[in-house]
């Protein structure tokens, strides 16, 4: 499985588990959990720097851009203009051309505004960004995102932070068939089996934050997620047996007394 690399826009990704850095107790816990998860891609938010406390620490002192692929997001952006502004600032901060594009449509559900998302993605792709769009589990929207130049799509499994798991596996499966780019299931994972299922369905990677950071033991959960993603990926590649209503004996009848 070590040669089972994921490649997007010419970039090789070692791990199929991608993680966020929000909601942890402190930077040390963030660092330990991410290390335990084996993740290589780490999402971060773009915000005003704390200028009142000179001693305030920097997340990147704990999550080094030399070790990890930092994926800035446009979390908290509710319109195209804001999302573009945050994406451009993220790139100007000089870490990478990658952006996890979020254009949120509604505070209660945090569902994406897919019309705004497509519009913003189109502009950013033209500006040379590698756009990872956080989208709905809608195959048609996913196709539109690919059409405007997104090298991957990131459909939700359930609302962000809900931990509900994969609410519509059939849509996700159709989506995976509908697009010819990697699919990274993002949002909604609650526990390890959800991550394994996403990978078994054929997802190329899974992104999560709350399921790890919000667990009673985040570092332990991070490790559980690592194995779940591996197991799910291996099972997908191995190919599961078909479901049948009745039993089929595993032991031969021949040779019985």
């Amino acid at each position, binding site marked *: 499985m070590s040669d089972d690399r994921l490649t997007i826009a010419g970039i090789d990704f070692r791990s199929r588990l991608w993680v966020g850095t929000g909601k942890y107790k402190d930077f040390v816990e963030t660092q330990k959990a991410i290390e335990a998860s084996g993740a290589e891609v780490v999402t971060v938010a773009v915000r005003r720097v704390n200028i009142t406390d000179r001693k305030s620490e920097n*997340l990147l002192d704990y999550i080094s851009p030399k070790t990890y692929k930092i994926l800035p997001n446009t979390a908290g952006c509710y319109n195209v203009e804001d999302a573009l502004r945050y994406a451009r600032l993220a790139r100007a901060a000089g870490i990478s051309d990658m952006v996890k594009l979020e254009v949120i449509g509604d505070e209660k559900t945090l569902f994406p505004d897919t019309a705004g998302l497509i519009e913003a993605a189109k502009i950013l792709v033209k500006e040379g960004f590698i756009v990872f769009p956080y989208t709905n589990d809608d195959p048609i929207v996913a196709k539109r995102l690919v059409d405007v130049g997104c090298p991957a799509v990131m459909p939700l499994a359930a609302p962000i932070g809900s931990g509900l798991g994969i609410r519509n596996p059939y849509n996700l499966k159709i989506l995976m068939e509908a697009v010819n780019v990697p699919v990274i299931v993002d949002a909604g994972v609650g526990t390890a089996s959800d991550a394994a299922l996403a990978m078994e369905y054929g997802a190329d990677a899974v992104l999560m934050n709350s399921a790890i950071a919000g667990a009673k033991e985040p570092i332990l959960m991070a490790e559980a997620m690592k194995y779940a993603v591996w197991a799910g990926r291996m099972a997908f590649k191995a190919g599961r047996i078909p479901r049948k209503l009745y039993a089929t004996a595993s032991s031969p009848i021949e040779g019985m007394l």
Partner: protein
Amino acid sequence: MRITLNGEAREVTEGQSVASLLADLGVQAERVAVELNLKIVDRQTFTGTSLRDGDRVEVIGFIGGGRSDDDER
């Protein structure tokens, strides 16, 4: 003279450069992006860019965040 820095009024010396402002703030220039009156300042020009009275400056960096529920709004 007075500028607005990350949404708050701040007194700075006449003609202070962006680089010098960041140094005063104790901010590592290579870890941030700077927006001056809604335009991104190229980091190569931090030293050569002087601030003017009334400028609106944003100093932006990365914080912990996964998705939209994770930030401290």
